[in-house]
Structure formats: C-alpha cells, structure tokens
C-alpha cells in the first residue's frame, strides 16, 4: 500500500545534541502506527520535526507532497492534526474558545467531538486552565478531531491519566483511527496493543525496528531490548 507519510533521513539537532540521526520510516494510510521507544530516544522530537516545530533536515512527505520546507500552519492545512505531549491547551481561553480557534474551514465536526466527550459541551464556558488533566487531554484531542484531517500525530495522550480516563482516551483514539491515519507516541503498551496496527521503534535517535504491532508486542525479548520493560500490560 502506498504510504501516506514518508520520513527519510530526518536529522534534528537540539542545543548541540544530535537527537534524531537519519530517522526513516513510512506510515501507511489508515489505522494506527505507534512510535515506541524509551524515554528520551526522540519520539516527541520526531513528531515535532514532522510538524515543522523543530529545525530539521531530511525528507518528510505527505501523500507524495514534500513537507520538509513547509511552515507548520501550512502542514496543518494539508490535513495534519497534532496533539502535543503536554496538551498545550490555551489555559486562559475557555473550552469553547479553544475549539473555535481550532476551526479551519467552517465544517467543524462539533457533533463528533461532543459525542466523544460530552463533558466539553457542558464546560464550554469554563477556562481551559481550570480543567482536570483528563479534561485537558480531551480538549487537546478534540482540537485535532474537529477538522477533517488525513493524518493525526498524537503524543502520549494517556500520560499521567487515571486508568478510567485511559480507557476513555483509548476509545477516542479508536474513533480517531476510523476517520484518519494516526501516528501515535504512547508508553502504555496496553493501549498500543489495543489500537495499533504497526509499530516503529526508536533507540537513541534511530529507527531500530518497524513492522506489525502484534509481532513486536508478542515478542518479550524485543520489548525488553528496545523498551526496557517486561511486556506485561
């Protein structure tokens, strides 16, 4: 299948450190590809580099169109949604204003968002900075789902959430995967096992494994070698 996203020879330097060292991988259209690896191997940097939020070298293309020289806002307008690691909701704006800001072309899917997260409708007038961590994550995901995106880059959406909220967010990610291709950075292997079709594994700034999620997750040795965990959920 023709890849939707292709990353070739991606290099990123941050503060004198060579963080990404020629990262190359492809994401097929449809489904969820999980980007895995230990802390600090460059997963978040990879997403930021694709989004144009970090200075980068190398090729990044979306459905054949080169993105590496594009500004972040143009990349987004090509149909790429982004949910950052720290949510980055606008704390001083209300929930409704956060969503309104994310609207791109008058066809915002509020029904979809409010079906997934009814709480956001109820809290439309509340300042986003006063939401709980879970609610802020719902808002961050909603901003990406509001528009018709082809690709969603979602960075650690379950980080720091209570187990019940993790389940809720995982459901939202499944829904997201029905309407767009998802490249997901996620530490929770239970969530990865539940929704990912493919995995790309990074280690010290390089891709060290890529393939079907099931093959990787069913191999305790691979999990231990690249993630440093036992593989138990």
């Amino acid at each position, binding site marked *: 299948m023709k890849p939707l996203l292709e990353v070739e020879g991606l290099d990123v330097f941050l503060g004198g450190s060579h963080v990404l060292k020629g990262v190359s991988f492809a994401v097929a259209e449809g489904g969820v590809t999980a980007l895995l690896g230990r802390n600090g191997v460059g997963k978040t940097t990879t997403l930021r580099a694709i*989004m144009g*939020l970090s200075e980068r070298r190398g090729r990044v293309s979306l459905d054949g169109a080169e993105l590496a020289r594009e*500004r*972040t*806002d*143009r990349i*987004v*307008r090509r149909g790429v949604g*982004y949910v*950052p690691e720290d949510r*980055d909701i*606008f*704390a*001083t*704006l209300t929930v409704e*204003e956060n969503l*309104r*800001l*994310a609207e*791109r072309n008058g066809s915002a899917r509020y029904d979809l968002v409010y079906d997934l997260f009814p709480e956001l409708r109820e809290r439309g007038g509340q300042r986003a900075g006063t939401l709980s961590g879970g609610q802020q994550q719902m808002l961050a995901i909603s*901003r990406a789902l509001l*528009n018709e995106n082809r690709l969603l880059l979602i960075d650690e959406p379950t980080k720091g959430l209570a187990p019940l909220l993790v389940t809720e967010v995982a459901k939202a990610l499944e829904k997201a995967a029905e309407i767009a291709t998802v490249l997901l950075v996620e530490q929770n292997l239970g969530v990865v096992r539940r929704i990912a079709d493919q995995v790309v594994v990074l280690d010290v700034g390089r891709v060290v494994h890529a393939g079907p999620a099931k093959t990787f997750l069913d191999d305790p040795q691979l999990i231990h070698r690249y993630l440093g965990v036992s593989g138990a959920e």
Partner: protein
Amino acid sequence: MSTWVLLTITGLGLGAMYFLIASGLSLIYGLMGVLNFAHGAFITVGAYASWYAQGKLDGIGSIPLRFLAAALVGLAVGGAIAILTELVLIRPLYQRHIEQVLVTVGLGLALTALVAGIWTQTQQVYLTPMWLTETTSVFGASIPNDRFVEIGAAVVVLVGILAFFRFTRYGLIVRAGVENRAMVMALGIDVRKAFTLVFLLGGLAAALAGILSGVYYGGIDPARGTHLLIYAFIVVVIGGLGSIVGSAAAAVIVGLMQQYANYYASSGVGDIAVVLLLAAVLLVRPGGLSGAVAAH
C-alpha cells in the same frame, strides 16, 4: 482640593498617553517576543506627519476639521510605518531576538535623526482647535480640555482592544498567541498575519499618542517619541508584559505618581519615584501587576 483635582486629571491625561504607547508595545512583546525600540519613532513620525499635513491642508478653513483631517493622515502614516517595519525588518528576523532588538533600535535612531534632519530639533507649534486649549472648571480646578480628550481616547482604545480580543477571530488568535505561539501555528493558523495586525494596531495607537502629545505639550519635537517611550516601557513592565489591562492600570499609576511627586515633593522627583516603583515591582512581583508573563 482644586490642586488635587488638577493634578489627578492631568496625571490621568499623561497616563492616557503612556497607555496608548504601552498598549502597542505590550501586544507586540506579548505575541511576538519583540521588544520594539522603534515604537518611539512611530510616535514621532505620526506626530510629524499630522503636523506636516496641517500645513498642507490649509484649504480646510475650519481649524477643528483641519486638525481631524491631519490627525487621520498622522494615524495613516504611523500605521503604514508600523506595517512596513514588521514586514521588511522584523519578519525576516523571526526567532532572532537580539537582531530584532538591534534593528528596532537602529530604526528608532534613524527615523528620529531623519525627522530632526528635515525639520530641525526645534519644537514645532501644533495647530490645535481653540476648545482644546481652553479650560473647564471641575470642583474649582481649571482643567485644560485636552486632558479629557486624551483620557477619552485612551478609554476608547482600551475598550476597542478588549472588544477586539473578545469578539473577533484575530483577537482570539492574538490572545492564544500570547500564551503559546507555536501551538497557534500547530492549529493551522498563519500567525504572521496576526503579527502584522498587532504591529498596525501598535503603530496606530503610538501615532495617536504622538498627535495628542502635540496638543498636551503645545508642540512636537523629534525627541518626543524617545522620551515617551521610556515611560511606556516602564508602564509595560509594571503592568505585566502582554497584559493590556495591566498596562492600563500601570499607566494610570505612573501618570498620577509623576504628577503628585513633582508637585508635593519637588520638580523632578516624579521621574525618580516612577523608577523606584519599577524597581519595587520587579523585586516583589516580577511578572508585573497582572502577574502575566508572556510565553517567551
């Protein structure tokens, strides 16, 4: 009582001018992280464009109409200079804050020198409608009418900016951009358009301050912008970088403090008092009165 009323209203008038300048500075820094040292030149250029237009519009017999028409020219020139500054000098230097500071300092010096070169350092008399030079009695104090115009203009600008923030999409973009510019771009918004718009608003407010300063001081000179800019920077820091309401509150405090200290202590003490206030705020509340610290 009448002295206190005079000092208070005059202090509010001075504060109004500081606010007009500080609002643009604060918006520009809050959204873009740019300390715009050329802002003083926007004041000077706006004032001189208005003064120059007064001379060229002598076909308009009515002094108030000529004053208003010339003021519009001053605003247009101030806005145009601000837009050009953003597009030509600031935009190529995004994320290069040291270079941005250097280029705005250079532009400020160059424009001020250009104005002095063309029209000399001598103060130029500003054509002002008669009513503005007259006084109105308030609680026994004779208040120059221009003070009410300055205060009114600042209130209109403050309400206008707040309404812009509250009711327009670009206002929403600016508020979000002050908090996290990168995330605004990550929502597919070309934040550069907001940068240009903010520079335009800042340039218009600065030019308005320049025009009103011509009325307040009875004339204009090339150093006017630089002089007012110093106090506007103090107001921005005291109010909290990026906070318009904070700037408004700080402008009132600074304007009043200068007037009271100069009168009740000694002439010149007002400036010292303002600097001491700045030092105290930085020590006790580094984020300024609003507590806002821009995302940069």
